[in-house]
């Protein structure tokens, strides 16, 4: 496996220092020119940065995966608030360009609820979720597990539906690593992995949630066992389900880049 040479590291250090100067000077054209040409829009939209930026310094340069070199930059804003960003540089037309950027430490997106909250039919799920419990819909008459929520039982047509607790344990049924920041709230919080998890103890219904650890340290496989846990968000009085690969330590705060090319 290829590792960056001392010459590579020196070259990238110079690129990163020039990049930091361009950033501090607010020279947008020069900043954009440091990214791979088809990447700069996605990368800039995916970062959470102080605006305006008052100072940028290069705090580390080290070999990354394959031919890449990683630099750590610290951005400071007018209020003194700092953001650490990891840039991955790759060789491009005789020089180096940024292929990937990450806010450190890695953070996952916060839950987003539409205005007006959730539909009444989902209440049993969300009320339990805030108390750290996974509940899914279950027919009181024929005991069929139902997901997503329905207004009557599609098996026996009973209108008596409830929410029953189920152990937050299951197997990955499908997954995706989202890199595009689709929402402004995703700035600084991409990439992330969503896992759709089959719950054997609830008739095999599938429940989607974010997967930890994340974002770069894990490439899951369908069939991998996961456990759920509930993390606080917002003012701290609410909780949201997160899946975590069973038997793996919980992050790895995204310090290392991993070798998938999830830009």
């Amino acid at each position: 496996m290829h590792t960056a040479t001392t010459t590579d590291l020196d070259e990238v250090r110079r690129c990163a220092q020039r990049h930091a100067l361009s950033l501090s000077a607010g020279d947008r054209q020069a900043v954009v020119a440091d990214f791979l040409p088809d990447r700069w829009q996605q990368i800039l939209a995916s970062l959470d940065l102080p605006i305006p930026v008052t100072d940028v310094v290069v705090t580390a340069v080290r070999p990354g995966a394959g031919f890449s070199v990683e630099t750590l930059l610290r951005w400071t804003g007018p209020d003194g608030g700092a953001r650490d960003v990891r840039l991955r540089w790759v060789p491009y037309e005789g020089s180096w360009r940024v292929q990937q950027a990450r806010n450190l430490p890695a953070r996952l997106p916060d839950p987003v609820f539409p205005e007006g909250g959730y539909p009444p039919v989902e209440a049993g799920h969300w009320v339990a979720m805030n108390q750290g419990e996974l509940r899914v819909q279950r027919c009181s008459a024929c005991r069929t597990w139902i997901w997503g929520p329905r207004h009557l039982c599609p098996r026996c047509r009973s209108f008596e539906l409830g929410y029953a607790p189920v152990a937050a344990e299951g197997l990955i049924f499908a997954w995706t690593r989202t890199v595009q920041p689709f929402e402004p709230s995703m700035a600084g919080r991409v990439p992330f992995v969503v896992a759709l998890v089959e719950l054997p103890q609830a008739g095999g219904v599938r429940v989607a949630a974010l997967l930890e650890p994340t974002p770069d340290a894990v490439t899951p496989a369908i069939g991998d066992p996961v456990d759920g846990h509930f993390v606080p968000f917002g003012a701290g009085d609410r909780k949201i389900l997160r899946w975590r690969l069973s038997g793996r330590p919980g992050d790895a705060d995204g310090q290392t880049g991993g070798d998938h090319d999830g830009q």
Partner: protein
Amino acid sequence: MASDRERRFRGAAAVVGVGETELYRRGTSPYSAMQLAAMAVLRACEDADVSSTAVDGFASYAHDSNEGLRVGANLGVDEIRWSTLVFGGGGGGVAAAVNAAAAAVATGQADCVAVYRAITQADDGRGSYVTHHLGPLYTAHGLFTAAQICALRTQRMLELDGVPAEAMEAVALAGYHHAQRNPRAVSYGQPLTRRTYGDARWVSSPLRLFDCSRENDGAAAVLVVPAEHVDRYRGRPAYILGGVQGSGPDWSESLENEAAYTSAGFHRAMVDRLWDACGVGPDDVDVVQLYENFTGPAVASMIDFGLCEPGPAAVRTMNVDNLVVDGGRLPLNTSGGNLAEGFVHGINLVVEAVRQIRGGSPNPVAEADVSLLIGGPAAPLVSATVFASAPAT
């Protein structure tokens, strides 16, 4: 076996005119969505050589904000006899709107129905394609877009069913190949190489940039009339042999709990019903317009229809050489498709499916007699229509 009702419907309606507006980069149309809708209908009437005042029916799909009655009023038609909007399903409703119009004219409810779809970002907002779909059970967990949903389904299709990712690449490359002969296409003059496709940035794995359609402002329309009236209109009619729409068991409202999760939603009974009703089979299809919101579900559609082998063998059909009009056995998305021509919720695919029979395609398939339109895959509602050069085969 086709029922008597299905046989009576076979070839009872035809498309006699098509119209399209320019495809604008999203947010840049100088016209409102209503103006674009009307413009598309006017151009379809011109193509058919009929007065626009004679249009007496309107059909659209996917929460089109331009109600048929308002389109008719703006056009100043003589009378509106019939109009409908297909429930939900996003682009899954595109062929269903054609089928509904065919049913209306075949049963005497109307004589000349415009099937249309018009979108501008100014009128419809961003992401109008998935309006009403993704509630908090998605958005609380980072899922905001159809791209991510389709990515989940595609990942399982690749990882578990063993469909090679090259099958997805073939859909993109075929569309871009065909778009190079279509000056209207947004990617005209921008050919796509395998290298560019594979090096492109991730959107949501396993989907990269060129696996995803880009929203455009624009509109298109086709005119559906009873088969016995086709001589009143100019040009060669494209007969509607049959169509299907619907949702299989455990499909809609399932929050990623669909039973056949890697299917595009065209379940076996639906596909068999289509072939039976039309009196043709997958081997008779000369050309396909395949709705590719994303390449993964597009491949799943081909598998559902029996047009392509399931699993690892999918690439026997889904390779770019086989999918291009120049020597391919099954030309696909011959005007560029949603990916390379432009994306107005799939309505341009209807126009191209008709042009393969009627004439005027930028990439005509020689002696095409059966032209298949496959509507939006992996949606709560899916639909398809078969067009043909003759009312029965």
